[in-house]
């Protein structure tokens, strides 16, 4: 009986999660199962030895290490992800994995593609850290169940579930750079079956700051409001449904100190930056477990996005609209026993883009129906294989196949060796993904026919191997991991900034690849004092106008250390150290090309949880106050041809001290 129940419940999970990490022990379980499956608290980042794919489980505890604020900032303590400013004007940061820019990573909300399209860069700020239950980060092409897009990896975000854990969460945050933020979460179980969660976020950057004294605001003034409401319904007979809706409203006004919204954009007047975004998302998941057929289930995922943004970079106008629909139907069953699991299904992605850039309109309607199948085999706890294949037909670029293979072998109990290889394809949204370059006088050279980009889809093969070794040393646990990934581009849309005053887009002609090697060591030095050391090395090269060169603005070397200490009376201390190596900075009108200096950044945080569930935190980012000098080239003449705020290799903002309060009602 117990076995059957467990089987049924794991089936249910798969349905709810419908996940690429399907083999993973998901963090969610219907409420009625609480007595059977007790959730593991993941206080920090963990890598399981059992999953066929190497997945870094980033728990709430890890997210709290950097109190601030949204997704792009929550990776500060994760060595696998690099976070860097896109330019010196917008204040946006973008993530990087395996040496590849953020858009090459598939970012999903509960396994539905989320941060993509026009929101490829800005979308990371639409999920506040306090809303998140946990994240799963995996490198390499993931499962075919989640589509064909992920080149570098997948980051899946699980939001808080309305049927478990904290009933109410409040968070108020203030920093020394004039940013105030409030987050709210509450859940309600309306009945045994029906539950709802309500999420709210408000953020205001109300203080003008110019720490580098270049006359430009370090980050724009503006407000951001996000609301989210989700519902869960656990029906009898293995039927389950959930739905959610999310709205984002965000304003940004920045640029030169004296710029006032609406000022005319011409030489002699203050240079202005604006980005105003309205975004609405809705999604639903419906799942059914067949109680009489073991481990057999079906699930449907639906989502829709409307995204509207108006941007201004000096006299450059960029207004864009995206409408997207996504549907994914997955069927899962077993052959004979749970050692042989098959999954299959159908999916459709519809993207409709309407972009106005300068005086030109670009339109694209892309519809990609597809079918997929995946077979998983496991032999005891020793060996796993996941082989997936999908076929998709793109109305603009034709049909293509996406094969993917994952292997895991555990020679010893505490050792796992994994390997993966797969193909990925995506259509670049060159404007949205390269908005940082708009903060310059660079001319955008875009090949186009009529109202569309004349560019091919990006096609890449990614392969990787990794080793995870856990150990116990002097009765305390530790782990060691090393991974190596190689991404080879068959085609890539190159954003070439090698020529001063230009950014030109074209299809790759010649080699383009990324090698990534990372080693990480985790150990509990003394009881309650954890240490994480990591080093990673990239070799990312592309062919720019016939010449193979190191990709600009990417650090080949990076070292990382994190120490966390927790006392029995709920004091927490956290300290992070980053060393970022040199980067190649291409030549501009005003300067020859050069290598940026390496630099060190430190973050630290102290927090204290009181008996009444109130937690107070105080922290600092970039404690050494290291800043890139003159991040804006030609800042004194922003309408002249030498102006460039996009050659960013270091921190644009100086030391930041913050404090806040969290309240959790269990």
């Amino acid at each position: 009986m117990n076995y059957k129940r467990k089987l049924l419940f794991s089936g249910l999970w798969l349905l709810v999660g419908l996940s690429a990490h399907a083999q993973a022990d998901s963090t969610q379980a219907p409420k009625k199962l609480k007595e059977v499956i007790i959730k593991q608290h993941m206080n920090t980042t963990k890598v399981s030895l059992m999953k066929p794919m190497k997945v870094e489980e980033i728990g709430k505890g890890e997210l709290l290490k950097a109190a601030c604020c949204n997704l792009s900032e929550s990776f500060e303590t994760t060595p696998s992800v690099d976070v860097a400013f896109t330019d010196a004007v917008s204040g946006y940061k973008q993530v990087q994995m395996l040496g590849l820019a953020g858009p090459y990573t598939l970012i999903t909300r509960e396994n539905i593609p989320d941060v993509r399209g026009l929101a490829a860069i800005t979308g990371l700020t639409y999920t506040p850290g306090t809303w998140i239950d946990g994240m799963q980060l995996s490198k390499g092409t993931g499962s075919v169940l989640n589509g064909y897009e992920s080149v570098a990896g997948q980051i899946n975000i699980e939001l808080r579930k309305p049927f478990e854990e904290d009933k109410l969460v409040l968070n108020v945050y203030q920093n020394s750079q004039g940013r105030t933020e409030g987050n709210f979460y509450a859940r309600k179980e309306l009945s045994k079956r029906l539950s709802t969660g309500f999420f709210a976020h408000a953020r205001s950057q109300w203080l003008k700051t110019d720490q580098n004294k270049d006359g430009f605001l370090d980050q724009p003034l503006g407000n951001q409001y996000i609301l989210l409401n989700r519902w869960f319904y656990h029906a009898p007979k293995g039927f389950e449904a959930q739905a959610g809706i999310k709205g984002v409203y965000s304003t940004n006004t920045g640029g030169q100190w004296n710029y006032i919204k609406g000022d005319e954009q011409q030489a002699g007047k203050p240079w202005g930056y604006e980005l105003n975004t309205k975004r609405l998302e809705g999604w639903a998941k419906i799942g059914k477990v067949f109680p009489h057929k073991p481990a057999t289930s079906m699930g449907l995922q639906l989502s829709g996005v409307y995204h509207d943004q108006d941007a201004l970079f000096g006299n450059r106008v960029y207004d864009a609209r995206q409408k997207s629909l996504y549907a994914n139907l997955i069927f899962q069953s077993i052959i004979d026993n749970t050692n042989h699991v098959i999954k299959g299904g159908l999916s459709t992605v519809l993207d409709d883009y309407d972009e106005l850039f300068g005086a030109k309109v670009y339109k694209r309607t892309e519809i990609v129906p597809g079918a997929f199948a995946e077979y998983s085999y496991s032999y005891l706890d020793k060996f796993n294989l996941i082989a997936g294949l999908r076929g998709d037909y793109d109305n603009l670029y034709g049909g293509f196949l996406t094969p993917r293979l994952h292997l895991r072998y555990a020679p010893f109990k505490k050792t796992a060796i994994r390997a993966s290889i797969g193909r990925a394809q995506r259509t670049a949204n060159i404007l949205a993904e390269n908005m940082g370059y708009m903060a310059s006088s660079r001319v955008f050279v875009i090949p186009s026919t009529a109202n569309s980009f004349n560019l091919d889809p990006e096609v890449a093969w990614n392969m990787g191997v990794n080793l995870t070794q856990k150990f116990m040393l002097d009765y305390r646990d530790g782990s060691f991991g090393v991974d190596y990934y190689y991404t080879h581009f068959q085609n890539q849309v190159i954003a070439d900034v090698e020529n001063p005053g230009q950014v030109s887009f074209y299809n790759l002609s010649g080699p383009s690849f990324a090698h990534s090697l990372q080693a990480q060591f985790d150990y509990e030095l003394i009881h309650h004092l954890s240490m994480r050391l990591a080093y990673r090395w990239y070799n990312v090269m592309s062919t720019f106008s016939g010449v193979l060169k190191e990709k600009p603005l990417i650090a080949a070397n990076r070292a990382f250390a994190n120490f966390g200490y927790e006392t029995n009376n709920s004091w927490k201390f956290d300290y992070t150290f980053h060393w970022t190596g040199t980067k190649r900075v291409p030549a501009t009108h005003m300067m020859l090309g050069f290598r940026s200096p390496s630099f060190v950044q430190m973050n630290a945080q102290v927090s204290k949880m009181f008996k009444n569930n109130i937690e107070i935190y105080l922290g600092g980012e970039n404690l050494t106050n290291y800043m890139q000098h003159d991040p804006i080239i030609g800042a004194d003449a922003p309408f002249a041809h030498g102006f460039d705020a996009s050659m960013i290799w270091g921190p644009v903002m100086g030391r930041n001290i913050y404090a806040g309060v969290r309240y959790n009602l269990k």
Partner: protein
Amino acid sequence: MKRLIVFLSIIFFSSAVFAQQNKDIVTEHYKVSGNCEQCKKRIENAAYIKGVKRAEWNKETGDLTLIYRPSQTSADAVLQHIAKAGHESGQVKADDAAYKKLPHCCAYKETGKH
């Protein structure tokens, strides 16, 4: 890569040496009452007194694996400390006041588990 292998083998080797050489270390098992993940944290935290090298409580079986230095502490001292936190063992009863303060999910006497 070579360095890596050396580094790794040092870790394994040294952990094996640590485990074998230290005579002033005992590993014992005790049944301790509790139900949930929260209890696990409570029990393990209470068990870490001076002289305790490792304390791991299994919430499925209620089994506490205790590794400590007999020269510095005793199993009884550890179990006393756990009982003070409200979790009783076969050897030491929890005091009522502490039991009443337990979080809801840890109220093992009510649910009859373990």
